[in-house]
């Protein structure tokens, strides 16, 4: 018999140890792959999207010439409204030309008509609204800060270069050179762009002005509808099923169906919503109320399941004690079981809402993928006004022809991610703060 040292590993031990090492390596590499994918995703989204939060502005004084803006001279808003945005665009261009001349900047090859192209088409409309709201401004010289056009803005974000501008019919290298001069004279500058969060969507001709305002309000309205409908219905259903319902084949069937509903693809709810809420009930298209109702249907099982789990986690001793001192079953539930289950219910609800916030597919079918520029009114009437939603706005922007919308779409993804992370953080906070162990 050979003598074997306890310190020397025999073949089988070696192979078992090696197998363990291999297994660890597999696990570690799986995590590394997952992390790399996440980092890659975040880097590409943030790299593309962060520029959307900054925008190039041109600041100069504008003389609001009464001869152009108020031909009748009576400051009558109805008559002044006849001067369209095209008139205001010309006014902006002449004022900019005068400002450049005053600063000693030579226009060079750029014609004064091209100056209009360097200013966003959104700006004349903004100025027009400002003048119509306050006709006393006419005749005065006001300082304005207008958006530069998408191509000029792209130049400072690295999207447009002198070479590409030479081939581009929407801009020219001369315009970019002029923009550089304007920048050194302090007329043109890159600033934080709050409009990305507050302004409505814009057409293909003015990507620089497109914002998420309407989409954020629309998403907010939908979440309110989902919360108001899904939370009470979901909690009532769970409490009944968990605390009151008899255990029989019928309630078993309901339970199985709730679990199945949670797994139904969300587009199915969109088809259902189109058929029931729009075609049958006659609710308006593109309205947050319909979006909210569809998302409620989708979220309900996703709230019921964690709520039931939270109710189950409350120990029977609590119920027995309450019933033992003479509480009715309703009192037991409302005074003891529900408050103890509340953290779990809230966590489930918030995560359900977060899922609903990011949902796109069902909204495609009920007309939410629309071009909406007017802000919806205040609730409850505003719930019936057309609105967009954050995820569909992203989808919408990825389909636009102008390259300026690429950064907008990524910027919108960042906004959506921030909302989702905030909601999940709140859910985690509730769970940590109110969690009880028995």
């Amino acid at each position: 018999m050979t003598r074997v040292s306890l310190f020397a590993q025999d073949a089988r031990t070696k192979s078992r140890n090696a197998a363990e090492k291999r297994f660890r390596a597999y696990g570690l590499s799986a995590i590394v792959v997952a992390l790399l994918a996440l980092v890659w995703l975040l880097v590409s989204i943030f790299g593309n999207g962060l520029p959307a939060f900054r925008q190039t502005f041109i600041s100069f004084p504008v003389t609001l010439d009464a001869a152009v803006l108020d031909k009748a001279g009576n400051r009558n808003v109805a008559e002044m409204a006849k001067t369209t945005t095209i008139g205001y665009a010309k006014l902006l261009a002449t004022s900019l030309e005068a400002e450049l001349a005053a600063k000693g900047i030579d226009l060079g090859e750029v014609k004064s008509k091209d100056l209009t192209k360097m200013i966003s088409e959104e700006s004349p409309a903004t100025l027009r609204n400002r003048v119509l709201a306050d006709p006393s401004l006419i005749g005065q010289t006001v300082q304005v800060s207008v958006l530069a056009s998408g191509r000029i803005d792209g130049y400072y974000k690295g999207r447009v270069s002198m070479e590409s501008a030479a081939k581009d019919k929407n801009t020219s290298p001369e315009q970019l050179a002029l923009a550089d001069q304007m920048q050194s004279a302090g007329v043109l500058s890159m600033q934080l762009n709050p409009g990305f969060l507050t302004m409505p969507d814009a057409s293909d001709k003015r990507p620089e002005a497109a914002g998420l305002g309407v989409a954020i309000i629309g998403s907010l309205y939908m979440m309110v509808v989902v919360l108001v409908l899904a939370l009470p219905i979901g909690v009532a259903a769970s409490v009944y099923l968990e605390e009151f319902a008899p255990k029989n084949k019928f309630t078993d069937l309901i339970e199985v169906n709730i679990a199945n509903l949670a797994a139904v693809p969300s587009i199915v709810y969109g088809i259902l919503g189109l058929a029931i809420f729009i075609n049958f009930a006659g609710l308006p298209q593109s309205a947050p109320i319909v979006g909210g109702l569809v998302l409620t249907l989708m979220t309900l099982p996703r709230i019921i399941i964690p709520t039931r789990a939270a109710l189950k986690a409350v120990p029977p001793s609590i119920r027995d004690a309450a019933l033992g001192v003479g509480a009715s079953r309703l009192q037991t539930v409302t005074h003891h079981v529900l408050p103890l289950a509340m953290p779990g219910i809230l966590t489930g609800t918030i995560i359900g809402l977060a899922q609903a916030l990011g949902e796109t597919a069902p909204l495609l079918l009920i007309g939410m993928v629309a071009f909406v520029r007017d802000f919806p009114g205040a609730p409850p009437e505003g719930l019936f006004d057309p609105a967009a939603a954050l995820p569909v706005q992203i989808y919408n922007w990825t389909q636009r022809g102008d390259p300026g919308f690429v950064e907008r779409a990524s910027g919108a993804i960042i906004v959506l991610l921030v909302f989702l992370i905030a909601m999940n953080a709140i859910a985690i906070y509730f769970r940590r703060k109110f969690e009880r162990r028995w």
Partner: protein
Amino acid sequence: MSLIKLIPSTVAILAASTVIASARDQLQIAGSSTVLPYATIVAEAFGENTDFNTPVVEGGGSGAGRKKLCEGVGEATIDIANSSSRIKQSDIDLCNTNGVTEIMEVRFGYDGIVFASDINGADFALTPKDVWGALAAEVVKDGAAVANTAKTWADVNASLPAQAIMAFVPGTKHGTREVFDEKVLTEGCKEAGAYDIFVAASTGADDDAKKKEAGAKCMALRTDGASIDIDGDYTETLSRIDANKMAVGVFGLSFYENNTDKLKVATINGIVPTVETISAGDYPVSRPLFFYVKKAHIGVIPGLKEYVEFFLSDDMAGEGGALADYGLVPDPELAATREAVAAETPMGALE
């Protein structure tokens, strides 16, 4: 218990909904994704320059838009359907069944369809015959139909670059595909003389069946990977070209005009596609753009007629207007269309 109060109140909101919903004060427009950018530009300017609300514009495709238009009359239905192809008899029949008896047809301009490749790639001077010869499933060799084996563009026409054939064409759900089939493939097939050979080789029962079979053969694309259907929109085609620098893609003129720094356009029959060559009729591949207005909604939904008139105004659809600036080819008969709109003339039967 607030829970118990909440449920009836939500039911009350739902019940009130039908009352509130009957006061729609903005236009609802849906349809072609080719017309969508034009419609949003007009809607935006319309909202800014008038007291009416900005219309809500949806995409979804020409066919889907016309179907929605024909769903019925009333505020829950849309007012205008954008369409990149003419309305079909089946749509009109559906409209009539649902009580939409009067539709106004508005043709507001033309759209060019262009072939473009990567900006740094080779120059292409194509003809419909070359495109058909490169992409058709069956071509003609020595008077007989054989499977297409051309590997490079130079195999099809020696004057073209010796570059592997790879083309991104719009999928069959697109209105653009119809024009591509009709004005490029069918034309090219006839030019190459293949149509007659296909007719002769057909086993159809009568002349009509034979012609139909030959027509379908002309439009059949090869399936060996040289021709790739794109079901998404032009942004997808653009990113595919970005990934395959050797490929050629089919775009709308306006999309190309807004991406001239990334794409190089091919000539067709020696003609460069521009707004001018298309409106002069020199460039062969173009199509009219329409929208269809539900006449019963004029005077009911505020701003409907004003929107149509605004759309057709010189500042928008006219020459040098905002839409031409974006790539629309203005319609030379715009004045007649304006008159028809002013008189609210509904469209007659399709010829």
